[in-house]
């Protein structure tokens, strides 16, 4: 019963969090010293067009009235129309978010699959040269700005070694070949049975995912190492060793099992950060993701798009946070 109550409490916090997010984003959008009408009609528009647009947008109304109107639109699933793309913001998000989701998921897989074993290995070999190398690599990966890493990766793997294709989500020859069903290009190619296009999309995503993944791997590996060092000094580990368990069983089952909850938080937060859209990586790799969309919208004072994209990012955080809460209950016997 208490588990159901806890779940209900967690779910109940979602609408409150979202409402707060809508309110804050809306207010920020209205107080920035940029005239939103300029973004729509351009700086050459005659004054009567400017005035008419201001009326149409309801910008002459009091702020609370504007907010109620906006929430009313959202309740009907209407984020408004983007000035930048002329599409409804919902349509834009349905196109840009899957690109980010695909890239973020690939990057997270790389980060976790490399970062966790590296962190564990470094902790087990604490103080040895392997540990030092891993720590230096992680420190570099975390401290080198992502745009430098991305440009370097392009220069080395694309321009010099010619192992990777150039920027973009798909090569020119495959562009438009596969209909968008889910927006996840790899999945869409597989569903359509277009395996050449699938292979091309896989090649295209590899380098940006690797850059993003390595950057985040550094963080995950450092955190894993720190958690493991603490865990390996626990009395339960000494007991496990005294019982004559194998080194692998001690490390993975006992020590690693004990850090899973904390590690999950780190991974979920990393994923949420990636899903915000890695603006610089997306820009350098010409990846049409949410980060580029949000940045472009901000620079063009396209407030409907900014509000819509921000809400999606917020919603992503809320959902992942909820997921993390639920997973605690699965992984941690003390919470069950």
């Amino acid at each position, binding site marked *: 019963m208490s588990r159901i109550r806890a779940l209900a409490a967690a779910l109940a916090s979602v609408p409150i969090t979202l409402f707060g997010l809508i309110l804050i984003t809306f207010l920020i959008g209205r107080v*920035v010293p940029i005239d939103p009408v300029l973004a729509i009609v351009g700086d050459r528009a*005659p004054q009567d067009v400017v005035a008419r647009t201001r009326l149409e947008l309801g910008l002459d109304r009091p702020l609370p009235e504007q907010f109620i109107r906006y929430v009313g639109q959202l309740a009907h699933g209407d984020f408004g129309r983007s000035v930048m793309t002329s599409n409804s913001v919902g349509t834009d998000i349905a196109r840009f978010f899957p690109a980010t989701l695909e890239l973020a998921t690939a990057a997270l897989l790389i980060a976790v699959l490399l970062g966790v074993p590296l962190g564990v290995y470094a902790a087990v070999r604490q103080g040895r040269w392997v540990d030092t190398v891993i720590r230096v690599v992680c420190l570099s990966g975390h401290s080198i700005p992502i745009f430098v890493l991305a440009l370097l990766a392009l220069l080395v793997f694309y321009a010099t070694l010619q192992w990777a294709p150039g920027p973009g989500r798909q090569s*020119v020859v495959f*562009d*438009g070949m596969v209909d968008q069903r889910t927006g996840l290009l790899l999945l869409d190619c597989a569903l359509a049975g277009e395996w050449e296009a699938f292979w091309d999309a896989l*090649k295209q995503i590899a380098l940006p995912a690797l850059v993003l993944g390595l950057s985040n791997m550094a963080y995950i590996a450092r955190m894993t190492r720190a958690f493991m060092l603490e865990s390996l000094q626990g009395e339960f580990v000494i007991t496990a060793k005294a019982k004559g368990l194998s080194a692998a069983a001690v490390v993975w089952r006992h020590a690693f099992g004990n850090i899973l909850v904390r590690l999950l938080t780190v991974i979920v937060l990393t994923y949420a950060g990636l899903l915000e859209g890695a603006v610089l990586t997306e820009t350098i790799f010409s990846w*049409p993701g949410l980060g580029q969309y949000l940045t472009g919208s901000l620079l063009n004072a396209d407030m409907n798009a900014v509000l819509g994209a921000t809400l999606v990012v917020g919603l992503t955080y809320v959902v992942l946070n909820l997921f993390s809460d639920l997973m605690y209950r699965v992984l941690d016997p003390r919470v069950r």
Partner: protein
Amino acid sequence: MPTRRALLATPLIWASAFGPVLAETPRDTVVMAKRIDDIISLDPQESFEYSGSEICGNVYDKLVNPSDEDPTRIDPMLAESWSASEDGRTWTFRLRGDRRFASGAPVTAEDAAFSLQRAVILNKSPGFIIAQFGFTRDNVADRIRATDDRTLVIEIAERQAPTFLLYCLSASVGGVVEKRVVLSHAVGGDLGNGWLRTNSAGSGPWVVRSARASEAVMLDANPAHPQPPRARRLVIRHVADPAVQLLLLQRGDADIARDLLPEGVRTARADPRFEVLSEPKASLVLLSMNTRHPALARPEVREALRWAIDYRGIEANLVADTYRAHQAFLPVGFPAAMTDTPYRYDPARARALLAGAGFPDGIDLTFDHASSSPRAEIAQALQAQMREAGIRLTLQAAEGRQVLTKVRARQYQLAISLWGSDYLDPHSNAQTFCVNDDNSDASTNRTSAWNCAWADADLTARALAAVKEADAARRVAEYQAMQRDLMARGPFAIMLQEIGIAALRRPLAGFRQGPLSDRTSYAPIAKG
């Protein structure tokens, strides 16, 4: 647990899995790397952004077209001939009978009338270019009409310089769309606007195959065009980073790179695989001075500011290849353009002018500028240069639209502004820089002069008269005189004209840039 060997082998696995990736665009496809995130619409009666207008210029034909070699000459395009009535108000265009839309249907006078009416009825950003001849939603159907399949009649409200109407008809907004196709996609009285934003119904050399905002626009050659492009497809890919554009060009993944920075231009010039084209664009960088500030209301102070700018230094050191020093309000490439640069860096003279105006200790001013390159670098250079003349600037960097909002509200002292011409006629710039017939806050005609709170009755009257001057030579002379007068007493220090750069991978040919976006042509583009 992962072994050391497995960890070390990771890059090798990566390499063997993907192998060398050969980069070369298909032979019949041209790939252009360009920033295209400014595209809002590909509807010619709506598009007013640089990239959108450029594409519309290649997808839609207009009635007439200024000559590329001599912009003062206007050539036929869809119209084979035209004439004006004696009072200069009724214009009759005779259309060619051999031009067809991409659908195969012939281009008729009814299509041309519909397109121009559509510009007025939709009343989107470029609509004023047509509407300024006295058209309204109520009268446009009567005043722009087809009298038969090949005859179009346009009745304007009052006599104007003949070239003024023709230049305006040659703008992107004058692109002729196929009425039947567009209306078949109309939704709720939008005259097909929603559909045309990402599709096309024109008779130009290219057809829009697909358009995805901030990602790519694909154009296919129009087989119905009398001279269809030799390339079958043109892909314009959004590549925001200039360094990445250069990489794509070097690897052969792009045939044209459009937004290289000066260092990238130098690299491309030094490489024999590439040809670098540069053409002046009708885009000016200028200093706007708000004359509501008591010091800036004094003509001597404004002149002092113009003498306190090192135009050549900025050109050489900050924006080499991509901008050139220019001081007149008509950019090179325009009819009546002037290349006179009477001002040079002379801080002593600027200081003397300030002293003469009652500011022997110099003046302090705030200076708003966009934080993006190259405006931020130019602002910093101006701060250093003007300090020598006793003009102490406090820089206020902000996002571009934030600066624009302040300028339009006249809540600034000095600001860096950009101005891009709307159409090829000199009136496009004369109107904004010279005309201010109502300097009140309630004015509905908010020109660049209004933004500076500067009203000069003489220049306003002359600009409004020049647009009606029928004698072409006298008209050119008048615009040149106005440019000299504005340079001498106006509230602007026009500093630079943008240079359009395109790096082409040899043997690509047939790409041509124009002063306005819609004058950039992909028509004869081909590899080899």
